[in-house]
């Protein structure tokens, strides 16, 4: 259960950003990618998987988590705050693709910073449910915004993805960043998560 819903979501995002363009759309290689909410459950696993797939991962975070994110494979760390402002319709093309777990202004800025034909896999709303963008990234750069939902994935696809995940995740590394908590501790940790004060993955040992 180290992976759970976060793992299922992260691998879908990573496959979307990288394989969908390279394999399905017969597109250019995906090298430079950005992951937002990088130290979160989904974000941290996405950083790990994309790095393992050979991408040059930029991790956007609100926390001083540089060492942790680099240990997961991230090459560059940036502050989420720098992207949390009103987005220009198009901005400097920096990334071949992106995984966004936070929504809002940050997602809008990511869309403006993605280079032609990049795919942005959007799965989250940790910062905001809103998205204020323009059509420009889509019609000028062919950027693709790809929604990810881990709830209604067919069993066949789940089995495939769980299989793939085991090849792309370093479980020893993941284990180091996992916090095991009891049901009692859960009642404390959940509110910290809503305040954006948690990082990494929390597993709940119901028998603890």
């Amino acid at each position, binding site marked *: *259960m180290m992976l*759970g*819903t*976060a793992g*299922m979501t992260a691998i879908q995002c990573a496959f979307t950003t990288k394989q969908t363009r390279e394999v399905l759309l017969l597109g250019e290689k995906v090298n430079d990618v950005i992951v937002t909410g990088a130290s*979160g*459950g989904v974000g941290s696993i996405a950083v790990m998987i994309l790095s393992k797939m050979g991408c040059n991962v930029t991790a956007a975070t609100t926390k001083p988590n540089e060492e942790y994110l680099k240990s997961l494979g991230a090459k560059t760390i940036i502050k989420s705050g720098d992207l949390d402002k009103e987005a220009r319709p198009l901005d400097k093309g920096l990334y071949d693709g992106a995984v966004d777990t936070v929504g809002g202004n940050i997602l809008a800025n990511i869309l403006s910073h993605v280079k032609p034909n990049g795919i942005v896999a959007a799965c*989250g709303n*940790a910062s905001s449910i809103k998205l204020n963008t323009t059509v420009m990234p889509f019609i000028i750069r062919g950027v693709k915004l790809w929604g990810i939902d*881990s*709830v*209604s*994935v067919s*069993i066949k696809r*789940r*089995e495939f993805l*769980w*299989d793939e995940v085991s090849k792309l995740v370093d479980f020893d590394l993941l284990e180091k960043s996992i916090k095991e*908590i009891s*049901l*009692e501790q*859960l*009642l404390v*940790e*959940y*509110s910290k*998560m*809503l305040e954006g004060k*948690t990082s990494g*993955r*929390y*597993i*709940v*040992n*119901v*028998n603890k």
Partner: protein
Amino acid sequence: MSDNFKALIVNQEGEKFLREIKTIEKSFLKHGDVLVKVDYSTLNFKDALILKNGARLVKEFPHIPGIDFSGTVVESKSEKFKEGDEIIQTGWRVGEIYFGGYSQFAKVNSNFLVKKT
């Protein structure tokens, strides 16, 4: 299985939203055809939203949250699973409209489960 076990239950009583760890009986579990002894669940952002106030995702109270879990099948009415199978459950609105994994035992629809290989 032992008849009594521990679960985290959320409930809505008027204006109040309650979160309690309770000892409950197997008969409390109402969904699904496979009974699982849960090892682990996890804390996801959606769980945190549900633990706060149900997040309008939970339709009926009292409720057991926990959108994912792993464990071992202890009883199965489905041909697809048998006692002793190790499973993973994610998605399908478990922990939202169905009881979830913040419980030592969970009952779940066999169509939702993936067998560990």
